[in-house]
């Protein structure tokens, strides 16, 4: 259901202010969403003054700097720092993206950093993605080729392989799904752009033999057709993929195929 307001326990309070101690002239204010599960308090937004003269170029570098030099209690996910693992997905300046590939120079003014939208917060910038992973599991994201031999490779033409371009590169960072208003309001039933892009990836795979069953599975008012082409997903994707187009292709297949 559409609920515009945040629940009472989620309302954001004013937080602490960490004044610069380095004496740097090149300071930037970073506002970060904080929630400590052990405190029993509401979430708050803390503000940090960060010395930009000694900070590398990405938003993740700022977070590392804050954690290492100013406030070690800050919690966020990160791993590869090269846009490959998808751990550091978060909302920066009102847009989802990977902190490790988002240059802070692209953001004007103070930098607001929140967890991915409309998720249960585990701590600070860490959101609970269990629901999304369960949905991912539900589309059975693996090759199903019952009749073909499992000991020989399955040949795929170059054209058929090209169909997977723009779908296989997804790193499941959840930037797209958590940017989607439809997913916010119906995330328990609507599969969301990330999972539907993966559903598409297996539907168009020439080696897969369960195409019809896969299509049938997603052909559902809530699972698929809650996509209203808002395109927040496509503009959020840090890998430059187009989940909205993949969803439209699934809809087209369903409209034209005999299922």
């Amino acid at each position, binding site marked *: 259901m559409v609920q515009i307001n945040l629940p009472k326990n*989620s309302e954001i309070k004013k937080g602490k202010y960490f004044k610069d101690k380095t004496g740097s002239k090149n300071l930037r204010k970073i506002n970060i969403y904080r929630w400590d599960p052990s405190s029993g308090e509401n979430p708050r937004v803390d503000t940090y003054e960060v010395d930009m003269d000694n900070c590398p170029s990405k938003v993740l570098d700022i977070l590392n700097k804050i954690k290492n030099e100013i406030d070690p209690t800050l919690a966020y996910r990160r791993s590869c720092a090269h846009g490959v693992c998808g751990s550091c997905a978060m*909302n920066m300046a009102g847009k989802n993206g990977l902190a490790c590939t988002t240059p802070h120079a692209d953001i004007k003014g103070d930098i607001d950093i929140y967890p991915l*939208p*409309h998720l249960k*917060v585990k701590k600070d910038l860490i959101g609970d993605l269990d629901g999304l992973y369960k949905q991912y599991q539900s589309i059975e994201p693996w090759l199903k080729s019952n009749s073909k031999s499992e000991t020989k490779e399955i040949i795929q033409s170059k054209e058929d392989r090209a169909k997977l371009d723009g779908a296989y590169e997804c790193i499941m960072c959840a930037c797209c799904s958590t940017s989607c208003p439809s997913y916010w309001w119906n995330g328990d039933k609507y599969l969301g752009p990330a999972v539907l892009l993966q559903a598409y990836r297996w539907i168009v795979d020439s080696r897969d033999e369960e195409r019809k069953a896969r299509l049938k599975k997603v052909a559902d008012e809530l699972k698929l057709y809650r996509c209203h082409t808002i*395109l927040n997903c496509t*503009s959020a994707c840090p890998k430059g993929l187009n989940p909205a187009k993949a969803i439209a292709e699934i809809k087209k297949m369903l409209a034209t195929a005999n299922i």
Partner: protein
Amino acid sequence: MENKPPLSPHIQIYKWHISSLVSISHRITGIINIIAITFICLLASLLVFGESKYEFIDLFLSSLIGKFFVLGLTWSFSFQVLSEIRHLVMDLGYGFELKTSRMTGLVVIFGSIFFTVVFYLIGKNFL
């Protein structure tokens, strides 16, 4: 005390894009148009009851609220039609690239304002 995890902020913090703005406006104008068509039907059926009722309609339409009503509807209908065309093209699988969708979105927004002005001028016999 039980510590229920809070919900991270969503629509409060998410930046608006042209595409999301057009999408939500499409819905809002759709609802406005349905109510408006019902209202126009009611006005039209008043005509059956004779001249005095017609005067009432005339009075309403020439009042400030009436004028706003007519002009507003001209816009919301223009917007709905243009946006619907955009949606139909998208249903065919085209126009999903970010640049294209931003451009078609802008066409819908400025086109609807353009048509509102055009229809206003036609109504005033200027065109």
